[in-house]
């Protein structure tokens, strides 16, 4: 029995889980802005086109870089002639991999807790060999971007094409090996076995087996990747304006690979045009841009254009999964057996690795159910396509689709309604804390409450009745359900324990300003999710001020407390709790000052609505602005020995559980045209439980956006490659992103099961939608196809694939 489970690493004793209400016992409940649908303050400038995205910044002596990329999926660089490019108008420098190698040390995308994971060293620019179409090979720096691109076209390369490995099954077979030094194409292999799986299958009354495949997608942040590096030789300092999700992580990596003290490096991410996990990795072209700024001692900017984004932003998914399920005749699931093969490109991406997605599939498959036996095998293999790494809902859509797909297959075989079958098998809401067969521990989930709510808002029986009536008229509708679990707010078990320089904790600093306003600084970052907005709500609530009095600043390593940034739905759960604790501490310190000013006991005072009040009489004593004025300008009027502390910092990291699991369930209603294969999504429902909902307005649209991204993967999006490893649709016209017309209205609802591991009680909400949508859609399509005895299993579900399933083409 293998138990190399990533999240079971916490062996040190931890504090027991305690119930921590938002207010001390006996106090009047004051939730303030928590749970209120407040529009985001920082949205107004964006609505007027007055955001500060990285490409909007202007710098003196700014140079721009364009990259010459490999046109081949696998080829030896026989000759690289840069001479013509070097003399083109406006050109400042043209460099190859050897020149940059001296400035930037190479990296390797491995983590020690993913046992056995391997990857070769990777350099900013390919040296000797290129291993995917789109890998950067030479950099051209010029006065303007147009000049850099013109000169890039003058780079001449001679190539010797090498055999390519494109199909993951070929990669596994290993006839052609991409990295000779590794001996085969296996990046990461993992097995998990609870034991007794074969016995469970042997005694089962019902065994079902399916094979599913998932296309490669990419994130398509509407704002492409942008980095502007400004090295100052005078103080050996580096300022990087970067639309990254994780400024402190990048600061660490720049320090390490450019040998600059971390304290001399400032990473700033102002407005960021979408992240989705795309902007949280080390990209060779971005590292090279920093190297160029150091070499040229001036600011250098790189803006990926859309075509190069398509072959250089990380891709994700691309799995082939075989899954089996065993059940007894009463409809109880006994066991799952999983075999996942996934292709990750030629390198494991640094520093998070490309092993995590497959690892998540192993961890999460079967996650909502109460079976006891589970066996899983994973192979992540190298191929000559663009690299893959963590993209929104990492592994979840695959785990959810194979789980929910096979669960439906079992329900159908047993003749039980899919909703009823789930009811029988979902972990009971009173069964927590619960340890899942993969070793994951759940604190408290609410699968049954969520399912009940979903069926109610869908009006499930009515939909079934309508479906049956329409079928008689030749209209084929399908209803699909999908229950999911979602990893949120991870502890260090996700990355830190494996040696990655990624902070699991986050800090928040709150300051009372002279005017009685509150400034919040937090290490979590904003890419549009509304983190700044919820931090404002939490801070206002904790201190006792109105929302208009709070200003929030994130995304700058020089001014915010140290933190991990935004990924894995950690903003609200981790950053939010840090803000709450910091706010409570600030309030206490403000009351100290007020008590000194008024010469009363602190316990007799409170802050409500920007005012110090007497708790017993409710009488207004002082406006907060008066506290600020006295503390900063007239401290001489305060008692001798008294010092005001009106700036406080608190940090938070979840300790009791490796992950703060959230859960949810989705429903999908589709109509399939059996003659054309076209699928119309009629409506979609989602009930999510992200614990305390801080701002329903934000959670709802965040959920919907996630669902639409999930629908994209299920229905439209695929990075298509030919047998030579050429990406065939590397542009937005051919790579299909969901448009508003095809999207259904999406109904959302919430169940709130606050986590008791924090006072705020928030779990993450960012990935639930993406995790469950493909599964729900697939089940809906297959439900519509049931009378035809047809089934789709390969995403995206194009009309052609539907017609193939129907045997029509």
């Amino acid at each position, binding site marked *: 029995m293998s138990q190399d489970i990533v999240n079971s690493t916490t062996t040190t004793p931890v504090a027991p889980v305690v119930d921590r209400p938002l207010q001390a016992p006996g106090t009047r409940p004051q939730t303030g802005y928590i749970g209120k649908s407040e*529009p*985001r303050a920082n*949205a*107004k400038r*964006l*609505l*007027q*086109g*007055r*955001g500060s*995205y990285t*490409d*909007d910044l*202007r710098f003196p002596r700014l140079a721009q870089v364009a990259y010459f990329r490999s046109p081949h999926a696998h080829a030896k660089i026989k000759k690289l002639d840069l001479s013509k490019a070097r003399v083109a*108008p406006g050109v400042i420098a043209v460099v190859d991999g050897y020149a940059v190698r001296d400035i930037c040390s190479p990296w390797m995308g491995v983590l020690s807790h993913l046992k056995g994971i391997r990857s070769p060293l990777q350099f900013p620019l390919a040296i000797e060999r290129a291993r995917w179409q789109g890998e950067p090979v030479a950099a051209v720096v010029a006065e303007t971007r*147009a000049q850099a691109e013109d000169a890039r076209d003058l780079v001449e390369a001679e190539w010797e094409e090498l055999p390519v490995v494109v199909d993951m099954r070929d990669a596994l077979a290993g006839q052609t090996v991409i990295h000779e030094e590794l001996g085969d194409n296996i990046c990461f292999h993992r097995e998990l076995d609870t034991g007794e799986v074969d016995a469970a299958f042997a005694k089962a009354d019902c065994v079902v087996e399916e094979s599913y495949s998932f296309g490669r997608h990419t*994130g*398509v*942040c*509407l*704002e*492409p990747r942008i980095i502007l590096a400004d090295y100052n030789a005078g103080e050996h300092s580096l300022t990087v304006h970067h639309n990254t999700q994780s400024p402190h992580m990048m600061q660490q990596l720049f320090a390490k690979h450019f040998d600059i003290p971390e304290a001399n490096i400032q990473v700033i991410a102002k*407005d*960021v*045009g*979408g*992240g*989705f996990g795309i902007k949280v990795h080390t990209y060779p072209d971005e590292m090279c841009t920093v190297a160029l700024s150091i070499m040229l001692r001036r600011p250098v900017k790189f803006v990926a*254009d*859309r*075509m190069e984004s398509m072959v250089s932003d990380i891709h994700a998914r691309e799995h082939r999964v075989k899954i089996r399920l065993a059940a007894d005749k009463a409809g109880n699931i006994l066991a799952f057996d999983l075999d996942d093969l996934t292709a990750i490109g030629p390198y494991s991406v640094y520093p998070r690795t490309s092993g995590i997605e497959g690892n998540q599939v192993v961890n999460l498959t079967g996650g909502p159910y109460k079976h006891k036996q589970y066996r899983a095998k994973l192979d992540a293999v190298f191929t000559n396509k663009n690299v893959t790494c963590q993209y929104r809902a990492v592994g979840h859509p695959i785990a959810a689709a194979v789980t929910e797909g096979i669960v439906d297959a079992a329900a159908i075989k047993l003749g039980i309604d899919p909703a009823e079958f789930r009811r029988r098998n979902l972990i009971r809401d009173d069964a927590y804390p619960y340890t899942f067969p993969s070793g994951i521990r759940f604190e408290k989930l609410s699968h049954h409450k969520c399912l009940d709510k979903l069926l109610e808002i869908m009006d499930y029986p009515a939909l079934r009745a309508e479906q049956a009536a329409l079928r008689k008229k030749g209209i084929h509708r399908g209803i699909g359900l999908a229950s999911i679990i979602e990893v949120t707010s991870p502890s260090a078990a996700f990355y830190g324990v494996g040696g990655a320089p990624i902070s699991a904790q986050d800090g928040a600093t709150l300051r009372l300003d002279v005017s009685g306003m509150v400034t919040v600084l937090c290490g979590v970052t904003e*890419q*549009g*999710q*509304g983190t700044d907005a919820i931090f404002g709500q939490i801070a206002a609530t904790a201190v006792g001020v109105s929302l208009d009095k709070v200003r929030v600043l994130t995304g700058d390593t020089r001014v915010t407390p140290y933190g991990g940034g935004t990924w894995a739905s950690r903003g609200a759960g981790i950053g939010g709790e840090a803000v709450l604790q910091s706010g409570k501490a600030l309030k206490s310190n403000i009351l100290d000052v007020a008590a000194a000013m008024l010469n009363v006991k602190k316990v007799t005072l409170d802050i409500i609505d920007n005012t110090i009040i007497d708790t017993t009489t409710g009488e207004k004593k002082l406006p907060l602005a008066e506290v600020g004025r006295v503390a900063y300008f007239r401290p001489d009027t305060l008692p001798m020995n008294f010092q005001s502390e009106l700036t406080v910092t608190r940090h938070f990291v979840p300790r009791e559980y490796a992950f703060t699991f959230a859960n949810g369930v989705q429903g999908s209603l589709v109509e399939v045209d059996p003659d054309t294969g076209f699928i119309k999504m009629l409506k979609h429902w989602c009930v999510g439980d992200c614990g305390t909902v801080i701002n329903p*307005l*934000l959670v*709802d*649209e*965040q*959920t*919907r*956006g*996630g*669902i*639409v*991204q999930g629908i994209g993967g299920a229905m439209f999006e695929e990075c298509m490659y030919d047998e030579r490893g050429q990406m065939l649709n590397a*542009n*937005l*016209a051919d790579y299909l*992103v*969901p*448009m*508003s*017309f095809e*999207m259904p*209205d*999406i109904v959302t609802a919430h169940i709130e099961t606050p986590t008791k591991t924090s006072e705020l009680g928030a779990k993450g909400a960012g990935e639930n*939608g993406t995790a469950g949508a493909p599964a729900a859609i697939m089940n809906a399509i297959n439900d519509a196809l049931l009378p035809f005895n047809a089934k789709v299993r390969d995403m995206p579900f194009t009309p052609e694939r539907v017609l193939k399933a129907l045997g029509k083409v």
Partner: protein
Amino acid sequence: MDYEIETTMTLNGTQVTRRIAARTHLVDFLREEMGLTGSHAGCEHGVCGACTLRVNGDIVRGCLTLAVACNGKTIDTIEGVSDSGEAAEMQHAFHERNALQCGFCTPGMIMCAIDLVKNKPAAKREEIREYISGNYCRCTGYHAIVDAIEAVLISKQRLGGKS
């Protein structure tokens, strides 16, 4: 050297004359030369709609429009319709419903939305969805955007009915 052409346009109500390289598209010109960074380039091949702006009163893809082709024309950008107040009601509706997240698609979306109000004042949800289909949003689920536009249309219809 790039071939440059002297070009005069009325930009957000003000006449400007510049020598512009013939190959420069309108968004690059506005962003790089005029400092109007509200128009965004999401794809530069005419698909995403982030560059949507108005030429002679009609919305166009700024990335597919050459700046020199705008000689003698009237250009309105998100900055212009914000400062004039023309987009205020739509911006307010977007804000109230959180019809934006990262905001990168938003200037183009607002330009398209106020164009819809002008051209299809009676549009229903399905038609709104179709009208804005040339504008990609990767963050929202489009639902809130449709809600916001629908709200503006309904309030205008109500006002229209009263007058």
